């Protein structure tokens, strides 16, 4: 993260987030909100970008098997 800006959320939402923080390693509600919004925006970008690599899947699987990898 390069820098931060402040946005405001309702007290009600803040309380809901706070109750979920206890069992996590998010430092505070801001980190929690940052994570969720990051996921949402990333998901929206993903919907717009369904590009393929052109690489043959069988070929990749063959190489991984050659190196001893099973399906994990």
């Amino acid at each position, binding site marked *: 993260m390069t820098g931060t800006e402040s946005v405001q959320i309702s007290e009600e939402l803040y309380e809901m987030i706070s109750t979920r923080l206890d*069992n996590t390693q998010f430092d505070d509600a801001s980190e929690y909100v940052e994570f969720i919004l990051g996921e949402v925006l990333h998901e929206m970008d993903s919907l717009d970008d369904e590009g393929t690599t052109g690489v043959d899947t069988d070929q990749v699987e063959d190489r*991984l098997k050659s190196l*001893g990898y099973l399906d994990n």
Partner: protein
Amino acid sequence: MTDTQHDNIILVTYDSVRADHCSYTGYERETTPNLDYMANEGIAFHQAISPASRTNPSMSGIMTGEPLVNREKVSDPEISRDHINRYGTIAEALSEKGYRTAAFCPNAYASRHYGFDRGFDHFEDFLFTSDLYQSLFSKHISDSGVFTALRNFRNLIRKEEAFRTWDTYIDDVIGWANSQDEPFFIWIFALDTHYPYVTPRKDREWSNSWKTFYYNYKCNSLINEFDVSLSDTEKQGIVDIYDDALRYGDKMLGELRNRLSSFDPTYVVHADHGEAFDEHGFYGHFFPSLYEECTRVPLVVWNEDTDQETISEPFSLLQLPNVLRAIADSDLESIGETSPSALSTTYDGRRDRNLVSYHVGDYKVLTEVQDDEASTEVYDISRDPEEESPIEGSEQFTSELGNLADSRLAHEDEQIQLKEAVGEVSSNLDEDG
């Protein structure tokens, strides 16, 4: 460096190299003379910790700086692709600073198929496009076990496909560097140290043709075994061919140093994960595990002008993007700054196991959850580096370490739930058009 503000950077990733088999950390065999030179003149890390114990999840963390959190099989390319697209790569960050970027990576698990090309101007993973591949190997033929064995044998001899060695593409690396404006960032991945350990005859120090054949055959038989018991002779035989592979892989550093010296690059050399030799009942890195042999790896930063420094505290390779940024900003003094703990985390998709470990100072906590049963072990790594005897009792300190691992697992569960919730809403929206 020529007339630019930024250093050229070479990132070298070795596959499956454990730190305690590198001579710069004190190993009795001279396995890594070129890395030793860099360590003796540069910044040498003695407790670098990989974020996971297999290439794909580990490199997903290293290239982004964020640990890969998943509950699916990592063979699914969507997992790392999604992670890399979500967090971006160090290659992108360096591009924004004006770097030209290239990668030479023969490991399919870190190929463009898995999303690792993001941010690179040039990405060579030695994979063919599907049309060419299909014309070479029809699906019908390549499904045959005999055909696969023959093709593996041919590739091993010709150093092709999965068995490509550094000497077959170093000219491409040098050629690319010579054709670029500076500064440049090159990521070179070396598979030479990955099973099967096949070292050219003239480069063998501790093995011979018979050992190379027999002990690779032995390793192959152990890949899917998780309760192995190797004799001392067998273990030594495997170590002999492994150490020779390390020594051969290390030769690449000498060649790079000689052939790229006019660019005065800064080198960052590390491994993606370690390799087990029956310390805890399994071989290799195919069985996900976070014991030291699987996660303690080499890390050295060097250029002609670095002041020697030894970092003995645990250092997570999740910090590697910060190291590369610091080099780009000519801020080498900040590189050795360590964080209070070093996290490793991985998910075993075949057996539905969650594993988390933290190094905190001399101590390490390992927690594993399978079938809703959690087990936690705490070790004093300074006294018991091979993790033979977990610390008994429930003193406050060991309890706090256990709580740290538990809280990480809960944190990952929350992250997974949030991701799934976002994905569900998104797919509903997609269906609604």
